[in-house]
C-alpha cells in the first residue's frame, strides 16, 4: 500500500489488507490443517478438497477472527467441521460400528511383551492401527500427539467439555495400543 489517493476504493483496500493479514496469520498453519484432514479422511485427495474448502471458509469468515486469538486452533476448528460435513455426505467411508467413545476408561495395564510390541511398532503399523479407530479417537490423537494442543484448546475445537477430552483421549490411546498389540500377531489385553 504505497499511495492513499482520494480515489482509493475502500472495499478493495479492505479486501487486500484482509488477504495479506490472512496470509500471514492463517496460511502458515496449512500443514496442521492438512495433517488433520488427511488423518480424518484417510486419503490425500479428500484431504486436499477439504483443506481447500476450509481455507475458503476461513477467508470468508476472517472478519470474525479476532487478532490475538490462536489462528491454528481457529483454523483447525473449521477443518474439523468441514471434515464432519464431508463424513455426513460420505457416510459409507466411516466406520459403522457404534462406539461409546466417551465411556469411562478402564485402567490399562500391559504385560512386558505387550509393552514391547507397542513400543516397537513402526509408523506404518501405527498408521494402520489409527485408521481402524473411530473418527473421534483419530481426531483427538492428532490434536494432542501431533499438534500438542492443550486439553482446553482441544475442548474448544471438538466442542466437548474438558473432562470429556481427558477421558476420550485416555480411551483413544488405549484403543490404539490394543490394536498395535493385535496387529503384531499377539492378542491384546
Amino acid at each position, binding site marked *: 500500500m504505497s499511495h492513499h489517493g482520494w480515489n482509493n476504493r475502500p472495499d478493495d483496500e479492505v479486501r*487486500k489488507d484482509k488477504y495479506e493479514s490472512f496470509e500471514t496469520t492463517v496460511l502458515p498453519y496449512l500443514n496442521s490443517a492438512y495433517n488433520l484432514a*488427511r488423518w480424518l479422511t484417510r486419503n490425500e485427495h479428500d484431504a486436499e478438497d477439504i483443506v*481447500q474448502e476450509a481455507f475458503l471458509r476461513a477467508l470468508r469468515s476472517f472478519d470474525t477472527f479476532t487478532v490475538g486469538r490462536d489462528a491454528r486452533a481457529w483454523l483447525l476448528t473449521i477443518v474439523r467441521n468441514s471434515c464432519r460435513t464431508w463424513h455426513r455426505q460420505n457416510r459409507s467411508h466411516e466406520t459403522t460400528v457404534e462406539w461409546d467413545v466417551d465411556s469411562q476408561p478402564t485402567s490399562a495395564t500391559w504385560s512386558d511383551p505387550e509393552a514391547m510390541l507397542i513400543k516397537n*511398532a513402526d*509408523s506404518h503399523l501405527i498408521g494402520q492401527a489409527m485408521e481402524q479407530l473411530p473418527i473421534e479417537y483419530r481426531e483427538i490423537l492428532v490434536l494432542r500427539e501431533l499438534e500438542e494442543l492443550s*486439553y482446553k484448546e482441544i475442548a474448544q475445537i471438538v466442542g466437548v467439555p474438558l473432562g470429556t477430552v*481427558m477421558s476420550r483421549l485416555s480411551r483413544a*490411546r488405549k484403543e490404539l*495400543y490394543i490394536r498395535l498389540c493385535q496387529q503384531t500377531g499377539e492378542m491384546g489385553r
Partner: protein
Amino acid sequence: MSCQKVSEFLDAYVDKELDVISSLEFERHLAECVACRAKYDQYRQIQDSTKSRLRYFRAPEEFEQRLRAHLRPPERYQSSNIRREWFPKWRPWAMAAGVVAVLLFTALLLQIARRPSPSDMLAQQVVSSHIRSLLANHLSDVVSSDQHTVKPWFSGKLDFAPAVKDLSSQGFPLAGGRLDYLDNRPVAALVYKRRQHTINLFLWPSPILDSGPRTLTIRGYNVVHWTHSHMAYWAVSDVNAPELNQFAHDLQD
C-alpha cells in the same frame, strides 16, 4: 492419592494437564508406590514411542501452490491505485459481456457465411438433378435429335415454351428432352451430347432479364449459368469447362 486415582490421572499427568495440587499428590504417590511407579514408566514409554512414530502429513508443495493461487484475490486488488482506477468493479463483467457478444457475432457471421446463397443452393440442385438423370437412366422422355420433335413435346406440359436449338454442327448434337423439377417448379431439361459426355441444359422463366454467364464447379461437374430474355439457363456436364463454355456461347448465338 489412591492407586485408582493415579491410573485415572495417568494421561493428564503425562500431558501436564493436572493442576498443581493434583500433580504434587500424583508424584508423592509414585514415590511411595512401586507398582504405580512401574506402571507410569511403562505408560510413558509406550506413549512417547507411539507419539514419536505417529506420522505427520505435510501438505504437498504442489497443493500448497494451487491453494495459494486459489485463495489470492484477483490481481486488481493487489495492484496500484492507477491500475485499479482503470479497472473499476464492473470492468471484468463488461469485458466478459463484450467477449460473449463478439463470440456470438462471429458465430452468426460464420453461420451466414457457411449458409449457401440461394443461387449456390440452386446450382447444387441442378447438379443433383443432372446426376440423378444419369443414374436413373431417365435421361429423356422424348428421344430425338430433331428440335422440331423435342420442342412441341413440351407444349402442354410446361407454362412456357423452351427454345430448343440444334447444335449438332457445333459438335453438340441434341439427344432429347424431359421434364424436371427445380427451384420449386417444373422445368425443361434438354439433353445434348458431346462425344460420350452428356450435357443437361435446364431452363425456366426467370425474373431477371439478362445476366452474363457464370461458371462454377460443383462436385467435379462444370456448371454454366446465365439468363437471357427472362429465361434462366443452367448447363451441367462432366465435359471440360472450355467446352461447356463453348456450348453456352453457341446456344446464345
